[in-house]
């Protein structure tokens, strides 16, 4: 027969032992920066950032989306949602599906922002399909950003290296920037009650890592790099003759987000 009291005592001892060892291990982690070491172990993805002493402000980053390559798998959206814990129903990035039929009618959709990929075929297209493609959308990191212009408290600001960021400790949650963004990339986070948007993964980029969505894209449709680095892919793409365009150029915002092979149907 098992002595119940003895068993409970044993459990107690084990519990106290676990707590103690856990506390000691936890405290040690505070002293030894295990997290930082982990980042350093990841191979540098944007060359010339780690260990470069020259000011970061000399970088000029650009994002290029290759519309002809995107397969609409939604990996970028999943990576983004996981990286930033984006609340359901709001999107820092999304993927649109365009279908153009024989009569030039354009059908666009983006169910759940393309988060689940496009596994369902559209059955409501009246005529044979002549063209179809996917367009990922994200913050345009404008040279002349309307959101920065209108923010009443300066919570949305442009960093010296050209990133448009939101300081959630300053944001009053008025939503003026949401109205002013021509690309609808902003939303009010229902939990923090502050404005939020894609940051091109600023914290990752500062450590020499690629934005999460660029990192996971299986077909290399999202490209990111420094335009001052003449060996970078984005530099070459923007210099060489390609069909490259930006969204809503008439708005005058001068986006740093470029599209390769953008069609006229895309807004």
């Amino acid at each position, binding site marked *: 027969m098992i002595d119940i009291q003895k068993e409970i005592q044993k459990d107690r001892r084990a519990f106290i032992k676990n707590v103690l060892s856990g506390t000691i291990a936890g405290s040690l982690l505070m002293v030894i920066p295990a997290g930082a070491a982990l980042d350093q172990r990841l191979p540098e993805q944007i060359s010339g950032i780690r260990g470069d002493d020259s000011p970061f402000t000399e970088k000029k980053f650009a994002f290029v989306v290759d519309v002809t390559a995107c397969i609409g798998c939604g990996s970028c959206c999943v990576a983004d949602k996981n990286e930033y814990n984006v609340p359901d*129903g*709001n*999107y820092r990035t*999304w993927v*649109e599906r365009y279908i153009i039929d024989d*009569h*030039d*009618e*354009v*059908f*666009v*959709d*983006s169910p*759940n*922002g393309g988060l689940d990929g496009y596994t369902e075929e559209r059955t409501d297209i009246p005529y044979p399909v002549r063209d179809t493609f996917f367009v990922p*959308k994200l913050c345009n990191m404008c040279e002349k950003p*309307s959101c*920065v*212009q*209108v*923010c*009443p*408290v*300066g919570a949305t600001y442009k960093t010296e290296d050209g990133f448009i960021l939101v300081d959630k400790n*300053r*944001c*009053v*949650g*008025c*939503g*003026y920037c*949401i*109205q*002013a*963004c*021509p*690309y*609808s*990339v*902003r*939303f*009010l986070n229902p939990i*923090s*009650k*502050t404005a939020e948007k894609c940051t091109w993964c600023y914290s990752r980029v500062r450590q020499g890592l690629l934005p999460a969505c660029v990192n996971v894209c299986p077909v290399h449709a999202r490209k990111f790099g420094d335009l001052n680095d003449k060996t970078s892919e984005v530099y070459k793409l923007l210099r060489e003759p390609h069909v490259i365009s930006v969204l809503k150029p008439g*708005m*005058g915002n001068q986006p740093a987000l470029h599209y390769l092979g953008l069609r*006229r*149907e895309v*807004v």
Partner: protein
Amino acid sequence: MSVAAHGETVAAISNFIFPNDLHVHWSLMIVLYPYITGLVAGAFIVSSLYHVFHIKALKPVARFSLLFALAFLICATWPLLNHLGHPERALSMMLTPNPTSAMAGFGYIYSAYFIVLLLEIIFIFRPVVVGLREKATGFMRVLYGILAIGSDNVSEKALKIDHKIIAFLAAIGIPMACVLHGYVGFIFGGIKANPLWATPLMPLIFLLSACVSGIAGIILTYILLMKISGRAIDMDCVQTLIKFLWGFFILDFVFEMLELFSHFYMATHHWHTLETLYSGPLFNTFWVFQVGIFSVIPFFLLMFMSLIRFKDGLLLFFAPIVSIMILLQVLLMRWNVVVGGQLMSKSERGATTFHPMWLEKEGILPAIIIMIAPVVILWIIGKVLPFWVDDEGVEAV
């Protein structure tokens, strides 16, 4: 559904909405904000018509309209604060403002206007307050002492100085009232991303509709309060107010229509977005209600009332009705601009819907409470400063 011809850049309406555009972010509270500030600006204009432009017929309502403006001005920030995600940071807009933001200046303009309005009320009511202080006891005596700003000098010389100050305050108050509300229009007019808002006419339309709503509000409350308290209504005053209401409404309505017509005539890509908005989600609230019922009918009613000498009874029957219709017209205009502008997705391919709920934070019930609040405040102000007593302490009978 239109078919995009070759070379055409206009998107076909296939009801695709950008994922972040499904939710209308500026809802009822932001409809109320320009509505309330408009009432303030309009009521102040009525007062200035007497104090600056010497429209003698408006004397009976000149003081009341200032108190009316004050009551609504006190509540002007309430819907904004209720809307903000972080109302506790609201003062940042004044302490650390972003100079390029159209919104950042509101706190300054609002405060400056508040001070001017308060000073004007204090100087206009000073002789009355001095008289009231004599009769009052306890707390009211202290309150009247404060309102009299420590001076019980009501000599002819002192009053003359008072009048000079009043004229000056009223005079700088007019441009400030115009800036206060024109600027509210600019908050919307300066948003290039929204084709319904992005027009230089927006501040002007907001300003004119503010004047219209303010005058209508004064007519309605003046007649109601006089009827309730059994006082005699000054028919000349009502007639004059109706004429001003008609005049301002002609300008307001014509500019509202001109704005729309300009978009239609220029037919840029903006119009192709707006066309679907006006013929779709905004058809009822804009064409049927704002234009059809609450603009055309009051337009003709006001015309008849201004040109034909109505019998007193008939005028007093129609004046409140036309005022209510005008007040609703302006409320509808705010709704159609603020909510309407957000219904069309920036995808230019589709529209979302918006139905306010009753009990949510920015729902219908909080909106009703915020609209009742200035009326209650006005009633409290009326307990302290009598609406209908003039300098000599003579009450309107």
